[in-house]
């Protein structure tokens, strides 16, 4: 018996030692049944043989139609398929060339993707990749510009204006000093392929991928994404494939790659903080790595807010999750699904045969897996301007929730639902800060913009600062049918210098030359103009252009470094808030919150803590939002919006002259009756009256 036990124990131990070791699969994620994968390089050779960079296009393309996926994918294209001539962009900016990140200037990022024909280069395509590539899935402009269409032999058309300069944004970048253009060696860098591993593996090595992109080793970005799997490691000579991690036939077990369908954490890599662990939620602001967290305070987590490590006001009372859908184990793809996903596909009333309640025809699973459309269903967020043709393709609240059943307390349900998005009440507040303004008119000593956040009573990342969060402003957003619905939003104000013609943002390199000496400190002329207390330095308060003379001084410095006709522009970018939703118990239920003065509909909303002297801010043209109301500049230089409700809202909407006439009528009746009555009494006392 003891011998038998010893034999069995030996068998178990030997088995454990000899079975190929795989990374522990994630507790909550089903890694599915994906077959083993042969990693292929761009020359169609197994990477184990060539030692080259893995090509997701070739590797995944063995089974999936990666060409189709690459083309049906606005996350990759980011506007390159929607380019428009200069001056025709819906944003209203004369220098924008598309509605996506590749061509639509963003004042938070600032650098300007320069079209051909402009007087000087700011951001060439290669620099665009280095700057924005870490939050870009690859493909699109990171690959397409270097490919020749096999059918026509042509390169895709780029926007061109005016005479060609001595540089080309496709082939040149600015040097480190920002003074000269230098040729970019695409042969050496390669392009960034659309990185399937970034969204379809559970733990992509985002930092390593970003490092490769920033270093200009674009071709190796997808390889770096896999570096956490043990398949490949960085050496002094470059990336080296680990043969031991591969199966004897050269394939890789899908569980080692941790292939899965995209989870919220995958989306969160680019879109904002997604927290799935048990450790307390923490966050930092001021950088753009967690885009939605920075711009609208979005945190997607099932954790209750009071358990976070953030210093939140009233934290102990916040016994609700950061997002109710995260608590209910939602993935982003449940709403933002592939447009031809057989399960989530949504047929629209406009295209559905009128006699059918339900069209049972669906794409077969095999066909879907071969050609999954990577245009993800999207809503109509005011900031999501890319591929507007796909607006409203996602499943919205009303596609899943029956508002008629869940709102017994709410009178005039349809009226309310037609007047406002569900989020208007189900995002009652944002418990954390978000960006308020980005001011490039005077660079900080760190050579960046002045940034302020709303919802923080001090430096936003200081642990001692109380984070109060903010209540979104409700503004009317244009709907597809021409109507408007109130939508909770944050407003991002930006102030920046433009030059021209052609009008364009002043390059960051030129701003630096204008504000700083070559040795580092502020230029003496800048100090002379802004140093109010004469201490030789510029305090944060002194770095505000609150007087026309200061604006003029900076303008002169810009001219001195070769920037003509500089002027300051102000811009307001609304950011729709559609996440961070709460369950009914936490939603706005009190009628008086809206039906009365000084409520959610008409309370003032601070747009900017400080607006440079004499500059008005205008809303971007493609937001589909009206800033209904007045923008008022207060004595302290801040800019506030006093919303004006366009609809008739009982309890809030009043017409002064009607109330005036009414009150006069009532007062006249009271006064007339009183006077008449007194006269009657007096006459009666005299023995005459009735």
């Amino acid at each position, binding site marked *: 018996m003891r011998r038998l036990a010893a034999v069995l124990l030996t068998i178990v131990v030997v088995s454990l030692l000899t079975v190929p070791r795989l990374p522990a699969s994630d507790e909550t994620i089903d890694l599915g049944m994906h077959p083993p994968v042969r990693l292929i390089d761009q020359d169609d050779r197994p990477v184990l043989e060539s030692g080259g960079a893995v090509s997701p296009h070739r590797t995944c393309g063995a089974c999936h139609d990666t060409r189709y996926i690459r083309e049906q994918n606005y996350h990759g294209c980011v506007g390159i398929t929607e380019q428009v001539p200069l001056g025709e962009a819906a944003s209203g900016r004369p220098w924008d060339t598309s509605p996506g990140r590749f061509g639509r200037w963003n004042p938070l990022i600032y650098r300007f993707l320069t079209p051909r024909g402009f007087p000087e280069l700011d951001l060439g395509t290669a620099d665009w990749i280095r700057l924005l590539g870490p939050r870009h899935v690859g493909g699109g402009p990171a690959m397409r510009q270097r490919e020749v269409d096999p059918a026509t032999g042509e390169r895709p058309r780029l926007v061109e204006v005016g005479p060609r300069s001595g540089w080309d944004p496709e082939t040149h970048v600015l040097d480190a000093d920002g003074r000269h253009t230098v040729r970019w060696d695409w042969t050496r860098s390669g392009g960034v392929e659309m990185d399937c591993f970034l969204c379809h593996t559970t733990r992509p090595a985002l930092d390593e991928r970003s490092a490769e992109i920033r270093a200009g080793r674009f071709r190796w970005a997808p390889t770096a994404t896999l570096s956490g799997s043990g398949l490949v490691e960085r050496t002094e000579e470059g990336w080296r494939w680990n043969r031991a991690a591969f199966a004897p036939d050269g394939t890789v077990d899908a569980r080692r790659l941790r292939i899965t369908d995209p989870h919220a954490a995958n989306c969160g890599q680019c879109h904002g903080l997604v927290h799935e662990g048990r450790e307390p939620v923490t966050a930092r602001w001021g950088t753009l790595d967690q885009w939605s967290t920075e711009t609208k305070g979005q945190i997607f987590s099932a954790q209750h807010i009071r358990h976070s490590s953030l210093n939140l006001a009233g934290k102990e009372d916040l016994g609700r999750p950061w997002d109710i859908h995260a608590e209910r184990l939602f993935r982003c793809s449940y709403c933002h699904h592939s447009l031809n996903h057989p399960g989530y596909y949504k047929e629209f009333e406009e295209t559905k045969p009128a006699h059918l309640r339900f069209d049972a025809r669906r794409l077969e699973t095999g066909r879907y897996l071969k050609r999954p459309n990577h245009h993800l269903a999207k809503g109509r967020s005011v900031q999501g301007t890319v591929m507007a043709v796909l607006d409203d393709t996602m499943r919205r609240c009303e596609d899943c929730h029956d508002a008629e059943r869940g709102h017994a*307390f709410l*009178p*005039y*349900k*349809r*009226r309310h639902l*037609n007047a406002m998005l569900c989020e208007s009440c189900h995002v009652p507040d944002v418990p954390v800060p978000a960006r308020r303004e980005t001011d490039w008119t005077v660079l900080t000593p760190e050579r960046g913009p002045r940034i302020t956040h709303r919802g923080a009573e001090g430096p936003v990342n200081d642990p001692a600062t109380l984070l109060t969060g903010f209540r979104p402003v409700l503004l009317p957003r244009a709907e597809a049918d021409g109507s408007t619905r109130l939508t909770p939003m944050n407003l991002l104000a930006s102030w920046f210098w433009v030059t021209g013609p052609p009008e364009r943002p002043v390059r960051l390199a030129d701003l630096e030359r204008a504000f700083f000496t070559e040795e580092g400190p502020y230029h003496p002329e800048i100090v002379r103009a802004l140093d109010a207390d004469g201490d030789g330095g510029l305090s944060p308060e002194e770095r505000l252009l609150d007087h026309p003379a200061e604006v003029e001084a900076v303008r002169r410095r810009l001219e001195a470094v070769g920037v003509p006709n500089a002027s300051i522009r102000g811009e307001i970018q609304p950011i729709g808030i559609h996440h961070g939703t709460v369950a009914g118990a936490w939603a706005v239920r009190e*009628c*008086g919150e809206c*039906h*009365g*003065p*000084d409520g959610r509909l008409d309370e003032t909303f601070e747009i900017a803590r400080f607006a440079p002297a004499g500059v008005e801010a205008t809303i971007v043209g493609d937001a589909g939002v009206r800033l209904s109301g007045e923008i008022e500049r207060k004595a302290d230089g801040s800019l506030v919006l006093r919303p004006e409700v366009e*609809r*008739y809202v*009982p*309890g809030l*909407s*009043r*017409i002064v002259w*009607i*109330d005036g*006439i*009414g*009150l006069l*009528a*009532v007062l*006249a*009746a*009271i006064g*007339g*009756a009183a006077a*008449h*009555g007194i*006269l*009657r009494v007096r*006459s*009666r006392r005299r*023995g*005459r*009256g*009735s």
Partner: protein
Amino acid sequence: MTRVYMYNRYQRLWHWAQAICIVLLLLTGLEIHWPRTLAVFGFANAISIHEVLGLLLLANAFLGLFYHLTTGAIRQYVPGSKDFVTMAVLQVRYYVAGIFRGEPHPMAKTPQHRLNPLQQVTYLAILNVLLPLQIVTGLAIYLVEVWPSFAAALGGLAVLGPLHTLGAWLFAGFLLMHIYLTTTGPTPTAYLRAMITGWEESEEHEAPAKEATP
């Protein structure tokens, strides 16, 4: 002075039902209009009460119309007299001067002719303009949930809401004057008591009022 049965049971019931509805409609309407200033019922309750009262007022208005049409009492509201203008001037003169000199009412009030020319004009405006305006605008606002095109056809809530408010103000003004004028009878409470009991102390005129059949 003679005692005349001026208002039968239905007329009194109708009057007081309307009165209660209108007073409560004005109160709840005030709360809906100024929820922060006047918070009695709560905004949502005020709306619900206002809706119910509005429907009751509408039903009562139609019952009243039916009664006045079928009994012929509607003729009282029609200023058909040839000397209407003369009588109206006399009535104005009475309110402006005669009442202070203890002169009798210029018009003999009978169950068949209860309304003087000024009342006829006022009720003509109230019943043909103000009440229909309030009913139509109120109904359109009430039905906006299920029949939005009705409200839209009338200009939408942005037009209906202010119109309804204006009508309410005018109603409030009328109500105040109406209450005051009830004190202009033989005694300050004579008309009020008449509307409660039905019997009114009526002044003697050259053409004495006929006693009504209870």
